[in-house]
């Protein structure tokens, strides 16, 4: 798609009518009619309650919904014709929508939102998930305010999550981003976040759109761009987040959009991350995130079975990706009984780092590399669940911290294999 006509004429006309805004809420959707209604009402409440004087707009970038999602969003507009008797607004609140393609791609949605933010000269922007059933009006406040009032450029969320929710975050993305980039951002691959117009514009201009690397996962790239660009980053506690049910088949696409994007970024960001040692806290607003401990059924047997089968079936793939010693160790633990099976932190970190280096060298198709990580990740999840099955919130936090430190400790190993691969 050409830059010049990336936005449709109709959407451009809508943007002209909206005009300059203070706050922009981006809402990427695709067939979210089940949840999006309550999400946009909550967003509107948050804006009217906390920012009644600011010029605000809700922008929906829809990937071709067939369930009436866009109509549910545009329906929350408030102006002098469409009024909601239960809502008082000082000024007009636009909610506009554009369909960008027949195939939903978060990259296109994000690019649309970023382009709109730049055209409308939005000071503070947030992106919200259309399927977040936990959202409250305070989420809007907590994501907007650090940008709008405290001049932060990126607001990363923290949540009150279940200890077994967001395991890709706790076992890979958080510790790896922390170890390599030196910042303790808990949710670098986030469904909700805030950013400044300044960061958005820079990212829009510099990002290599349509380069085929991460057609999704723009959120993570934005985070890494903020880190490497020296932008002011903070975390803001939003509250409780209910786990979203995922099918096992969702893991590979998720890995592509998150780990794939991270691995890809390591290549371009080498100068930035290779010189970093240790990690720093980022300013935080609101409560400290804690994990919930209520019982949650996890099919551990299935996790282990998928690990064992993966190690067996993908051995030839692993031979091109992993060091021989790592593969030997993986095969050894794959042979352990259910009670003895553990995927220890050090082995997990070495595995991830070796995958990253292999990705950089493209020893095989990069997509195959990402797919091959899936069964190993399941093995790691099995171990995390077992180790924290009876753990207190503090125990879980300590275990995650230990893993992070392991990632930091082994960072020289990554540098070593990264360079040797070169």
């Amino acid at each position: 798609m050409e830059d010049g006509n990336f936005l449709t004429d109709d959407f451009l006309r809508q943007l002209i009518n909206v005009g300059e805004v203070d706050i922009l809420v981006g809402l990427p959707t695709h067939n979210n009619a089940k949840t999006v209604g309550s999400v946009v009402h909550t967003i509107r409440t948050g804006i009217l309650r906390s920012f009644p004087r600011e010029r605000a707009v809700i922008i929906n970038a829809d990937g071709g919904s067939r369930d009436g999602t866009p109509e549910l969003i545009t329906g929350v507009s408030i102006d002098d014709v469409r009024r909601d008797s239960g809502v008082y607004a000082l000024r007009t609140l636009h909610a506009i929508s554009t369909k960008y393609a027949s195939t939903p791609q978060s990259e296109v949605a994000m690019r649309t939102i970023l382009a709109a933010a730049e055209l409308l000269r939005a000071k503070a922007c947030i992106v919200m998930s259309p399927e977040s059933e936990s959202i409250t009006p305070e989420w809007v406040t907590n994501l907007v305010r650090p940008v709008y009032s405290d001049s932060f450029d990126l607001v990363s969320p923290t949540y009150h999550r279940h200890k077994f929710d967001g395991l890709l975050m706790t076992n890979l993305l958080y510790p790896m981003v922390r170890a390599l980039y030196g910042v303790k951002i808990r949710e670098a691959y986030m469904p909700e976040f805030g950013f400044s117009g300044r960061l958005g514009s820079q990212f829009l201009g510099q990002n290599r759109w349509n380069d085929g690397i991460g057609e999704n996962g723009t959120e993570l790239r934005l985070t890494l761009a903020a880190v490497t660009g020296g932008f002011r980053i903070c975390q803001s506690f939003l509250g409780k987040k209910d786990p979203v049910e995922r099918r096992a088949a969702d893991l590979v696409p998720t890995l592509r959009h998150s780990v794939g994007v991270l691995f890809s970024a390591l290549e371009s960001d080498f100068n930035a991350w290779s010189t970093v040692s240790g990690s720093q806290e980022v300013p935080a607003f609101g409560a400290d995130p804690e994990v919930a401990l209520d019982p949650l059924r996890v099919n551990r047997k299935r996790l282990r079975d998928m690990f064992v089968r993966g190690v067996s079936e993908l051995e030839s793939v692993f031979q091109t990706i992993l060091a021989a010693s790592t593969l030997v160790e993986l095969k050894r633990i794959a042979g352990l009984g259910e009670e003895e099976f553990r995927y220890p932190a050090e082995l997990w970190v070495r595995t991830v780092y070796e995958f990253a280096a292999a990705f950089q060298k493209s020893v095989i198709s990069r997509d195959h590399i990402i797919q091959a990580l899936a069964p190993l990740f399941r093995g790691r999840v099995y171990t995390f669940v077992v180790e924290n099955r009876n753990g207190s919130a503090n125990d879980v936090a300590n275990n995650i911290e230990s893993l992070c430190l392991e990632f930091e400790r082994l960072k020289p190993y990554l540098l070593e294999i990264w360079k040797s691969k070169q």
Partner: protein
Amino acid sequence: MNPTTKDALWYKDAIIYQVHVRTFNDSNGDGIGDFLGLEKKLDYLQELGVNAIWLMPFFPSPLRDDGYDIADYDSVHPSYGTLEDFRKVLDSAHQRGIRVIIEMVLNHTSDQHPWFQEARISQDNHRRNWYVWSDTDTQFKDTRIIFLDTEKSNWAWDPASKSFYWHRFFSHQPDLNYDNPAVREHMWNVMKFWLEMGVDGFRLDAVPYLIEREGTNCENLPETHAIIKELRRRLDEQFPGRMLLAEANQWPADLRPYFGDSDEFHMAFHFPLMPRMFMGLKLEDRKPITEILQQTPEIPPSCQWSLFLRNHDELTLEMVTDIERDYMYDMYAQDRTMRLNLGIRRRLAPLLNNDRRRIELMNSMLMSLPGTPIIYYGDEIAMGDNISLGDRNGVRTPMQWTGGWNAGFSSAEPEKLYAPLIHDPVYGYPAVNVAAQRESEHSLFHWMQRIIAVRKSSAVFGRGSIEFLYPANHRILAYLRRLGNESVLMVNNLSSAAQAVELDLRRYKGNVLIEMFGNNLFPRVGELPYLLTLGPYQSYWFRLRRV
């Protein structure tokens, strides 16, 4: 005899200029404006183009509330001249086609009025029942206090007669007792006195408060409406073509009854609209304006709203929500000394940061929205205010005629002026005065002359219907005014930035737009949305003409 009262609906086409005799022009050099001074300036008002003046109270008064505390209804304050001087003003104005509306404070008198002085002598005095008395201060407890900054109660203790008297405004303004037929009869006779002299109408002050009833908020009561109806009946019978204008700071729905079935007031101020015009401008959003006008009920065909931007009082924020009031204070009165009661005591130009474009835009809306516009004296040259003066006196300083001695207002020594002149570098009389603006072709004065002339060129503004267009660009306030075959289109850009707007004018397909200030043709209306671009705060007035 008033030669201008041929058309009974004259007030619909009027452009009213609000002036206080004291502030306008001093003919005898005592430092206080007077009737003979005003008479000398009627040519100026004619030149400006106004066709009615509203004179604020000029009656004998201790002037503790700028004349709204009347001590004698049948005379004029000696500082302003004599009854004969007033007659001269009346006749001279009529000769120029300018009607004269005077103030009538029905609700209360000064505590110095002989009626009250008699009433307090003893509880048996025959005037006693002309006012509202009580042994306690607990009656009518559901009634709000209007002057919150100065009054703690609507009752005041009278040590002379050892009882409480009722007052809705200052404690030195006791309310008359309209349950007393003698009071009602006497107040009609007061009005008759001035009508026989030739005044064209009354602005009746504080009308919602005439009657008190326990268990109510003592406002807008049916008995009050009955009194108004009786006054109107007598007015129509004995003085046809004269006009009553209600001052009732109420929500539109509560105001509507004051028009009755064309049997109460001819006109009423639209109080809630004014703050929302300022709010819409600051928000750069038409919503506050269109919303309040959508909520404004239909009024009988012979009735009319009276619109204003500023007047002698504070910019009242009684008829707004709390969130709107906070916004207005923060946007227009960050300095707390600018705030008074529930309002902002500032003139138009300082409220708008002396931004000529915004002043023009606000006047453009004032002149084109449905109603009769009222211009507060001095606003036509963007006079400033002096917030260091107490109460609302900061917006009541002498008119600035020239850059010379005392701004050309008076030959007195400056310290003898009733109020100090505005001296600051931006709004001071050397910079802002009538003489200088008359000299400059592009002055606000000349712009006001032009917009008044354009407004007077068509009855559609005073008498036509209104239909809002709702273009998707919310910064654009666009509406059609129609009367008979005539249609005009007004497009106002509330934004500080240039805007593009698409208007749905398909119903007018084939018409051309004629810009009314320059009589320039704009493209013909077709099937497609009509695209206009407007500069910051720009407004267009178009006549629609099929050619």
